[in-house]
Structure formats: structure tokens, C-alpha cells
């Protein structure tokens, strides 16, 4: 939930500026709570990173010495590498489609029209619909249409469906905040509609567009449940990881997880950076 994380980050920033209070019972309790909070949040990730370097055939503690062996195993296994490629390609394509759709939806929301609230509700529905339900619905839907499951057919649709509401929420604020007078000024200076779009609107919202693309990529990259339902032969990284645990002991799993985490967080972090630039520009 990148959008929520962004607001959480803002809160942390403002808290740092508050005056320090003296230690009393409450603040000690708060300290313990916060420590536990971060321990539970990041502890497992830290342990995964640790285990990925563990020189042991069994996934788990104790730590028997450091090795990069499991990373070599991952990079040597064609099924894992193709899953990684599938996830990245799918992430980019669904991010591009969702961002484009979010952009045009946002443009349409700058005018009032009948049924606007209904459209908004439908766009945001996948957020509140449980993933397992979404997956089943999509499976039935594709079954009725007779569409065979495939990475760039059913899975792509499922991903765009999942990513779109977040892309819309990320981009829409920027689009609604765009000063209409700036577009009028461009038109007044002789720009046709397409010139207004290419020379004014798109350059101004470009940071927000890039941020939306990156967030969307991260979301698609991590998607599991819906993918599982509509997947064909080509698997994505989360599905491969899941089946690896279910089918057998998978000592290379932590290494794969670390790679996944790195790609996913890199996308989101770049997204945050662009979002920050976008809001700075807007000011």
C-alpha cells in the first residue's frame, strides 16, 4: 500500500520537529511499543536476508556460516530466472497500461458528468474486494469468455485490474491540482488542444506519471492471489516462491526472496522520490 506508506512517512517527518519530552512512564511504554512494532515489521525481513546467506541445506536457524551459494543456485535455475523475467516484464506492461488508464480517467474527472461517482466506485472496487474473491471472479469471467489462461492475456488483465485503483489515486491528485488557467494560458498563446497536452500538461505532471509507473510496477510485481487463479504455464516470482515452499524444501528460497524485495522496494523508493519532486513542483 504505497499510498498509505507515503502519508505515514510524512507523519514521521513532522514528529521529528516536535520538542522532546522528558522520560516518564508513558514515554517508556511508547518506546517499548515502537521498538516492538519495528521489530515485528522488519525483523522477519532481516532474518530472511540473514538466512539467504546461511550455509545450510535447511532453511532456518542456526546460522552455519556465510555463503553466496544460494544466490548462485537462483541465478543458475532457468525456471527461477524465467519467473523473474516474467514478473518484471508483466510489471512494466501492466504499470504502463494502468498509468495510461489512470491518466485518462483523471482527465475525465476534471469535468463533472453523470455517473461519475459510479465510475469512481468501480475503479476503486478492487481495493476493497478480497484478493481471493477477485481471483475467483476473474477465473469465472475468463472461463465464460473461453479465454485460455496466459501471462499476457489473463494475468495481465488481472494485474491491471488490481493496480489501476492505486495508479488512479496516485495520479488523480496531481491532475486535479493542475491549474486550469495554465492550460487556458497555453491555449490563449496559440496552442491547439494536442499542443496544450504535449507542451504543458504532460511535462508538468511528468514526475507524478513516473511515480505512478513505479508504484504500479511494485504492486504488480508482488501480486500473488489473483495471479494464482488465472495463471497459465508461465509463472511469476511470487507463484514460484509459493510452489517452492509447498512442494519441497527450498534452501534457495531466502535468496530469491531477497532479490524480490530488492526489486520491489527499489521501484517504490524511486516512486517516492518522484512523488516528492512532483509535490515540490506543485508548491
Amino acid at each position, binding site marked *: 500500500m504505497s499510498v498509505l506508506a507515503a502519508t505515514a512517512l510524512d507523519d514521521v517527518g513532522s514528529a521529528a520537529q516536535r520538542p522532546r519530552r522528558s522520560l516518564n512512564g508513558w514515554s517508556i511504554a511508547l518506546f517499548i511499543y515502537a521498538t516492538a512494532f519495528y521489530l515485528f515489521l522488519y525483523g522477519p525481513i532481516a532474518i530472511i536476508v540473514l538466512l539467504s546467506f546461511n550455509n545450510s541445506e535447511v532453511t532456518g536457524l542456526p546460522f552455519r556460516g556465510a555463503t553466496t551459494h544460494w544466490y548462485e543456485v537462483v541465478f543458475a535455475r532457468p525456471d527461477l530466472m524465467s519467473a523473474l523475467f516474467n514478473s518484471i516484464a508483466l510489471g512494466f506492461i501492466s504499470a504502463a497500461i494502468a498509468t495510461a488508464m489512470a491518466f485518462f480517467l483523471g482527465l475525465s474527472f476534471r469535468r463533472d458528468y453523470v455517473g461519475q461517482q459510479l465510475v469512481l466506485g468501480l475503479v476503486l472496487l478492487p481495493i476493497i474486494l478480497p484478493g481471493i474473491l477477485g481471483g475467483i471472479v476473474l477465473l469465472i469471467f475468463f472461463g465464460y469468455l473461453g479465454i485460455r489462461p496466459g501471462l499476457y492475456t489473463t494475468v495481465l488483465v488481472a494485474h491491471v485490474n488490481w493496480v489501476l485503483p492505486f495508479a488512479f489515486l496516485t495520479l488523480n491528485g496531481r491532475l486535479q491540482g493542475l*491549474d486550469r*488557467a*495554465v492550460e*487556458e*494560458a*497555453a*491555449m*490563449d*498563446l*496559440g*496552442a*491547439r488542444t494536442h*499542443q496544450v497536452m504535449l*507542451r*504543458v500538461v504532460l*511535462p*508538468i505532471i*511528468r514526475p507524478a506519471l513516473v511515480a505512478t509507473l513505479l508504484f504500479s510496477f511494485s504492486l504488480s510485481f508482488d501480486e500473488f492471489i489473483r495471479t494464482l487463479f488465472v495463471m497459465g504455464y508461465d509463472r511469476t516470482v511470487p507463484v514460484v516462491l509459493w510452489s517452492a515452499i509447498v512442494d519441497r524444501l527450498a534452501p534457495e528460497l531466502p535468496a530469491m526472496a531477497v532479490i524480490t524485495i530488492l526489486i520491489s522496494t527499489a521501484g517504490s523508493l524511486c516512486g517516492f522520490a518522484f512523488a516528492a519532486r512532483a509535490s515540490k*513542483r506543485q*508548491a
Partner: protein
Amino acid sequence: MANPPTKEMPAAIQLDTATPISVSVRNVYKTFDTTPALKDIALDIRRGEFFSLLGPSGCGKTTLLRSIGGFETPTSGTILIDGKDVGGIPPYGRPTNMIFQQLALFPHLDVYENVAFGLRVQKKPKEQIDGRVKGALALVRLEGYERRMPSQLSGGQRQRVAMARALVNEPSVLLLDEPLGSLDLQLRLQMHEELRRLQRTLGNTFVFVTHDQGEAMSMSDRIAVMNGGVIVQLGTPEDIYERPQSRFVAQFVGHTNLFDGKVIRIEGSRVTVESDGISLAATTPTPVELGQAVTVVVRYERLGLGAGDTTLRGNVAERMFLGGTVRVVMALSGGRLVTADIASTAATGLPAIGEPVALTFNASDSRVLVA
């Protein structure tokens, strides 16, 4: 208010009936949903004229300006620019450029590119763009700021960029939508002078929208005062100020004492009006009848302490030092208040608060409004 013209300023353009019409607005109505914003607007603006649309917010002045610029479509009526009906022509096809209230500079472009925008979208040759952009920046005295971003400029500098951006296209008509509203007073007075200088140098028609009567008076050749979607009076600043035709104009333009009463004596254009037991001498522009209900308009600064045709007696209720003048509020015996602006140099003998005072004015300085 208006600064004396400096040497570099060419003399004001003489406007007469021989000057061609730049903008002609004919019977224009505009209705938003069911709310009428413009009602039967008709006016001719001459080429090279500095024309102001003056009125309170919601009076329709901005709607009229935006209709000329092509941002609003009149519900009915026609607008001609340089003799050509511009109905159905979008903003990019009109020989007008607008300076927006919030300026609307392009935040992603530097000063140079902001100014060059119009020429770029019209695909003018590069050398020509460069020459004209530099010329426009020189015109608004912004040389050396080419590579600054709008966010790095002060309010006054942004104002100049907006002007250069519009003027570089050499519009036949420049439309200004209260562009000085966000500036502080000192800067605003400076920009008034600047605008006047630009307009005289370039000779374009300027249509200026404002709710500030001082601004309109100091810059305009003519002013259309608007209220409730109609033009209530159109004329030179002197006309509007000296000869208001309605209570609204009298109160909106300048500071005014109004006395409602009945005509009790007529001697040609000079009449005597009785208001709450006080006799007031005034001049009437239109014939009136004995007993007719009228309003007498006396500007604050037309009241004095010396001798006059009418003398009002009361006590000083308030006095305020305004610099060049002292504002005196006098309470008449019935309780009603009369305000006068007395030149500071003449105010030395002014009684203290609570003391009796006599304020006077001449019939030539007061004016009768019919109904």
C-alpha cells in the same frame, strides 16, 4: 493617484470617433445554467485605448473579458475584434492575449521559454523567436532573468514575465484580468505606471478588469462600470467621478456622502434639496420638478471649512490623519454622519473630537441624482 508622465512616455493617444473600433460587443448575453452573468452588453472599444471594466466581484466583468478572449461563449449576441466576428473562434485563433488573474505562468519552463511559448507553438523561425523574446524581456525590464524558473521570481517579476509572454505575440488586444491583485500597494502603483508606459509605447488596445476604482481611474482612457451583469455607466474617469449617473456609481467610485431628499427650489440647473430638515444647494444634470425625490451626492474632498453655498453644522465625531488629508466625520444634530476630507495644510484650525464644527460645500461641487 496618476503619476505625471515622464519624458520617455509618448503623449496620450487622442481618441475620437475617427479612431477605428478595436473590440465591438453587441447585445451580448451570457447565462450560466440559469444565472444571468451578462445582460445585453453593448460597447465599442477603440484601437489603442486603455479601457477598464470596473465593478464589484460577480458583476460580470471577468465573464465579459473571457468572452472577448474566447474562454466563454456568449449565450447570444456578437463580439467583433478588428471588425471580424469572432463567434466560434477558439482562444488560439483570436488576435487577443490574456494576462490571467493568477498569472498562470508555466511552472516547468524558465522565463525565456515562458515568453517564447506563443511563438514556438506558432512555429516561428528560431532567429525570430530569439529576437522577439529578448525584445519583450527588455520591454518589461527583465534582461538577465532568462534562465530563472517562475518559482525563483518575486511577485513583481512574475507579473512582468506574464506581460512579456502575452505581448511578445503582438496581440491586437491585450486582456488583463485583475493581474495586479496579489501585489502589495507600492508594487501595484509601480505596475500601473509600467502598464501605462507599455500601452503608450505599443499602441495595442488594453482591456483591463478590476474592482479597484483607483486603479481604473489612474490608468484608463475610458471606464465601463458594471453591476449585476449590466454596464451602469460608461465614460472617461472624469465623467465617472464627476458625473455619476446612479447611486451605485457614486458610491462605488470615490468616497461619497449621499443625502436623500425632495427638490424645494429650482433655478435653472441649480436646485435646492431638503433632506431631514437641512437645505442643500446642488447642480442637476437633468431637469427635475418641484417635490421630486432625489439624492444629493457630495464627495468627501468637496467639503471644506471655509465659506460655501451650503453649511452643515454638527460636532466632530472622528478625525483621522491620512497624510495629505485629514478625514473628519461630523455628526449632525439628528445623528446622521457626514464625512469630509480636508487638505492637511487647511486642517490646522480643525476642532477636536466632540467640539462643534461647520462643513461647507458649493452647489457646483454637489450633484443631484434622480432616483
